[in-house]
């Protein structure tokens, strides 16, 4: 069994037009995912843009406020899951609700697991 990280990206604007009923449904779906037996860890990141540190050749690292990229999608959270291999990890991730709400998931294997 290996561990995989699911990096979940989404556009926060996608949530703005949901009705209370739809928000509840979404909450329930996300909740169900954090409770899945293969989920080792689930974390959400703060919605602010964060800070970026960039090495400057021959000088002190530069610290700037986010965002890190031009796209509207931001890294909103991450999961660590157990899966036999990449195929299984991807298959499990395909079921994640964020995909229903226009998000993107990056699946990465944790080194040495």
């Amino acid at each position: 069994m290996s561990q995989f990280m699911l990096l979940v990206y989404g556009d926060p604007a996608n949530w703005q037009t949901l009705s209370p009923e739809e928000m509840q449904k979404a909450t329930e779906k996300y909740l169900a995912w954090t409770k899945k037996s293969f989920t080792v860890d689930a974390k959400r990141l703060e919605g602010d843009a964060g800070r970026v540190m960039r090495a400057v050749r021959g000088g002190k690292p530069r610290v700037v406020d986010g965002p890190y990229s031009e796209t509207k999608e931001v890294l909103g959270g991450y999961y660590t899951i157990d899966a036999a291999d990449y195929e299984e990890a991807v298959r499990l991730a395909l079921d994640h609700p964020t995909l229903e709400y226009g998000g993107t998931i990056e699946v990465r294997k944790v080194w040495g697991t």
Partner: protein
Amino acid sequence: MGDVATAEAGPLVEHLFRHQAGRMVAHLARLAGPANLDLAEESVQEAMLRALQTWPYQGVPGNAAAWLFRVAHNAAIDVLRRRQMLGEKTEAIVAELTRWAALRADDPDIDEQLRDDELRLMFMCCHPEMGRDASVALSLKTVGGFSVREIARAFLAEEATVAQRLARAKRQIRLGRLTLEMPRGRELRRRLDSVLEVLYFLFNEGYAAHEGEELIRRDLCMEALRLGRLVAASSIAEPRVHALVALMALGAARLGARVDAAGDLVLLDDQDRSRWDGRLTALGFHHFDRSMAGDEVSEYHVHAAIAATHARSAAERATDWPLILQLYDQLLALNASPVVELNRAVAVAKVYGAGPALASIEALENDPKLRDYYLRLAVRGHLLLEVGKREEAAACFRAAMGCACSEPERRFLKKRLEGCEG
């Protein structure tokens, strides 16, 4: 499992967000004033969003409703501060919001206050100057916790149309300086009538058969029933309020049985009575009993009595059609509407046969509203078939299919048409 393990087991209460949204909007609108309805809605949306962002990872709080309540109040305070609407009045609102945010939400006094807030907002939404479409949209959006998209779907309307209607209604609140004060005396009676009309309209819209969106339409019926019960539980409830709640509950009890597994319409006569919701039927009879207090006989009373007669047929395995016919006669006396006459024809057919029933609706052919009404043609076709006039019946069903109707209705008519030929 780390933090994940703290996520609480058990699903959320059904429609928790929608119902809490309605209550909280009503409450915040009272604290901040109805001119700030947008502020109330924005704050509630923010609270729901926070729940979505935290509950899946930190677990659902023990008292989810109280959590939303507190967060929505704090969000309202943030919005007010952000807008920098300074001044004594804003400070007073912030102080009041702060006080409420700190209260224990399971306090029974709070529950009563919140019910009162919902009622006030609903009565304001049904202000006579508002116009029915605006009242309907605004009630659903605010007290009902429906989104623009959901309202548009329920009424097969464009989202932009619904949004415009809401914007106009809110402008009217500001310009007309509408308040959340309950009207008094005769004005209260009139307002109550318009509230009941809006609820009855909501219910009927939800009850009408339409393709697809079955779920949202069912929600509409249940919301009308919920709001009706809210009025019925208040001190201003009159017997006709209970009559309306009774007819809605008895009708809602049959919702699940009126379409079959294939999504086709099932006529009342052919419905599987065991699929009628016993809990809602019991609720309906409870309010029907309470509607008997006093001498008033409203149209709601008679409609409720008809629904109750059908509901009793489930236990008695037979429908008391003479009684139903009598009730339709009573309804005609209260409101001589051609639609009532059309419905009455079905009872006439059961009691006296299809011939007299046909004669009773002959005049409706000349009614401009009913001439091209699919239901008139469908009823006529049904009666013609019973007296053995197959070809004329087929012509009726064919004509009915050419009228405006929903897909399930059209499929139903097609089946009847095939029945004429077979």
